[in-house]
């Protein structure tokens, strides 16, 4: 055959063919084919559907093939921390009401900077936001940082999550929060409950056993919920969402001109065992949280305190107890007298007052905590309270009962006598109990929306402050190019994703910081300052152009569109 063909086409044709093949192989050597990219996401049907939708958008709009890999949560974290990924589908929720709780993630070498992105300008802007006390200048720095983050796109925000609930309409003043504890029930009451409002109570579902009710070490929202109900710190965000003097233990405070010193005046208040709440309870508790021997995950939220980070970084084995005890005395918190607390910060943090309502900042009575030692807060009879409610019964893994705390300083504002919490993880069961009138509130996840979404007692979508996004490994051969990363973000149709896939009222994320975060000056959302940095619908033309440019720069063959 070969000889025949050569004879028929002659030498010229053969030479031409050889030249063509040569050219093609030369081109192939220069331009690498697009690699198969892996997208890491959590296991479970709900996430799977979301990831498949993203996969399809990237395939259709960019001709990019990604292969999802579903792993359990801890495995995903491990892969992220080891930078062992191309792309990850991840989420983040705020700890306090300041854009910094989002923005400081992506500083060079940051603990959560999984994409390993590094940008000197960004670092500088975040440093300004961390060290400045002028809110105008801080917000401007973070606005610029947001723009830079969207332009360089180590992460691509997709949506800001919203949740809906089925909630009996007779429940009043039931305040959901995006930061800290998920619900504030201090002022809640019922009006028009069938069977009467004489005895004020609520039947609620915690979903799971609270893993840790010790304020110093607690890390999860279920526990935060109970701790917020049973403890009172310096401030409590009021029903209008503001922090005002006298809202909790601090009746007054002075802030030094450099923003680094706070002096709080405390009111007379009692623990549930009758003991007074004093400034020393704060000193003890804050030192305990920062103490490296406590090994508190949230110790980092205390790092604004003078010397906190340094003390927390000590090694209990190498440095020994005495050195740590001595160092703790240098922590920026001090009791001037029983009712006066002086706090010294490492650097000015205008959001410090908001931080003091966080669980880790609650006071603790030393005598009681030391009496129970490691088992403090392990059972209902091994803890004290100074908040609106006390835990009167706790059957682990089954139920927890809160009752009104008669020794609470503001007991007159608390109308609920009793709150019963189930720990039912199964959504279907929770809905059945709600249908029977045995639960007063239950969450409504997307798969139940077709069933109950139109009911009158279903709440409007409520943004819980978390953002979901794609992270890209900026060290990977294809995602080292910012144009490629930005193209990924432009190719995603966020509106379609929210309307057709999530269907729960979540909002297209047009920047990283969630809209619940305020600007610290006017109380307006920070996102209003920055505008829309990502389109709500896919910008396919711009995405394809950037993608092609980026690929060419990195020496990849152009994508094929179907």
């Amino acid at each position, binding site marked *: 055959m070969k000889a025949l063909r050569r004879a028929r086409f002659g030498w010229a044709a053969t030479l031409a063919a050889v030249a063509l093949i040569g050219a093609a192989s030369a081109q192939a050597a220069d331009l690498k084919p697009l690699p198969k990219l892996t997208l890491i996401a959590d296991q479970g049907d709900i996430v799977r559907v979301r990831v498949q939708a993203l996969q399809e958008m990237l395939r259709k709009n960019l001709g990019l093939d990604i292969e999802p890999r579903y792993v359990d949560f801890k495995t995903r974290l491990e892969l992220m921390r080891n930078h062992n990924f191309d792309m990850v589908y991840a989420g983040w929720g705020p700890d306090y009401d300041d854009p910094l709780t989002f923005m400081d993630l992506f500083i060079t070498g940051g603990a959560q900077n999984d994409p390993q992105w590094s940008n000197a300008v960004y670092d500088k802007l975040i440093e300004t936001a961390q060290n400045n006390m002028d809110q105008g200048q801080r917000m401007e720095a973070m606005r610029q940082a947001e723009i830079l983050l969207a332009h360089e796109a180590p992460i691509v925000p997709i949506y800001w999550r919203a949740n809906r609930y089925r909630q009996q309409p007779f429940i009043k003043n039931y305040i959901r929060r995006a930061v800290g504890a998920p619900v504030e029930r201090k002022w809640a009451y019922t009006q028009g409950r069938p069977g009467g409002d004489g005895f004020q109570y609520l039947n609620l579902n915690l979903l799971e056993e609270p893993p840790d009710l010790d304020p110093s070490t607690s890390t999860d929202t279920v526990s935060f919920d109970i701790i917020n109900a049973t403890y009172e710190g310096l401030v409590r965000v009021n029903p209008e969402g503001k922090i005002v003097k006298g809202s909790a233990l601090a009746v007054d405070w002075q802030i030094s001109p450099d923003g680094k010193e706070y002096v709080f005046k405390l009111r007379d208040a009692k623990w549930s065992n009758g003991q007074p709440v004093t400034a020393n309870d704060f000193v003890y508790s804050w030192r305990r949280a920062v103490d490296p021997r406590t090994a508190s995950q949230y110790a980092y939220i205390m790092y604004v305190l003078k010397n906190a980070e340094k003390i927390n970084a000590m090694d209990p084995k190498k440095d020994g107890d005495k050195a740590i005890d001595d160092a703790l005395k240098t922590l920026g918190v001090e009791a001037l007298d029983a009712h006066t607390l002086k706090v010294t910060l490492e650097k000015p943090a205008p959001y410090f007052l908001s931080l003091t309502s966080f669980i880790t900042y609650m006071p603790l009575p030393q005598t009681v905590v030391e009496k129970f030692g490691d088992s403090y807060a392990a059972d209902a009879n091994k803890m004290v309270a100074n908040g609106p409610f006390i835990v009167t019964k706790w059957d682990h893994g089954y139920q927890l009962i809160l009752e009104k705390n008669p020794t609470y300083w503001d007991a007159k504002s608390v109308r609920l006598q009793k709150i019963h919490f189930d720990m039912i993880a*199964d959504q279907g069961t929770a809905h059945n109990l709600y249908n029977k009138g045995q639960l007063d509130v239950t969450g409504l996840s997307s798969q139940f929306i077709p069933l109950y979404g139109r009911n009158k007692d279903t709440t409007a979508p409520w943004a819980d402050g978390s953002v979901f996004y794609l992270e890209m490994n900026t060290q990977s051969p294809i995602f080292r190019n910012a144009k490629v990363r930005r193209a990924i973000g432009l190719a995603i149709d966020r509106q379609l994703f929210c309307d057709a896939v999530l269907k729960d009222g979540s909002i297209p994320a047009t920047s990283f910081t969630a809209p619940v975060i305020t600007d610290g000056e006017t109380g307006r959302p920070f996102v209003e300052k920055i505008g829309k940095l990502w389109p709500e619908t896919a910008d396919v033309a711009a995405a394809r152009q950037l993608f092609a440019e980026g690929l060419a720069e990195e020496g990849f063959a152009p994508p094929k569109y179907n």
Partner: protein
Amino acid sequence: MARYLARRLVYSVIALWLVTTVTFFLMHAIPGDPFSSEKVTPSIHQLMLEKYGLDKPLLVQYGDYLLNLLHGDLGISMRQTNRSVNDMIRDGFPVSAQLGLEALLFAVIVGVTLGTVASLHRNGVLDYTAVLLSLLFVSVPSFVFATVLQYVVGVRLGWLPVARWEGFSYTILPAFSLGIGMLGSLTRLMRTSMLEVVGQDYIRTARAKGLSSWSVVGRHMWRNAILPLVTVLGPLTAGIITGTLIIETIFGVPGLGKYYVESIYNRDYTLIMGTTVFYAGLLIAANFIVDLLYGVIDPRIRLAERG
């Protein structure tokens, strides 16, 4: 017999040690640890590992664990901070056991009856009904029964509680849902076993002697037909007690089943080990008891041992 018992006991201990060891090392091979979290910083993470002794070499940790285990100390849960695994098992197991035993009792009584009735009416309407039902019970997963029963009996009819664990009426739906699959298998097993016995010579002899049919069924057929059931009862009992996870979750039952699975997702090392060792011990004990029972029921086994 004593020698046999001693030998079985030694095997049991070895089996338990093997389960402990394999689980320990497999568990540490899974990525992540109890304290890996989105928000933890590397230095704090290190402090947490140190506090729980997870920074030590794995073999040292293993040695420590075995030593504590010998003292009956299963350690402190790493997820439900401040709670001892012993307490968690002490609280949760009686609930799971009650649920499991109720389910077992229900499955055995109804299954054996149904299987017997079916075999005595071979190829009749009763037989076909029993076979069909048992097929349905075996093939439909328990959580489907649970969900349907909860909705129909709990919500629509309102005859029994929807969920929670407050008294006997709360145990009926979960026990029924849990036992129904086993009921199906037992019915089929009993029927087959009875049909095998029915053709034996000694049954013909018994009938020829003019014994009443109750006496034939009860004393001669049953006693022989029940043997295969006893064999599977050990693993089934353990299975039903450990298999309560889904049913417990659906009915809000505060048992041990959910810890068994959750602990793995949470990498709660002490709880993974605690529940695994505990359940393994239970399973080994159940098989041990069944072996003993077998000897009591079947004289041939006793003879074989003696010889």
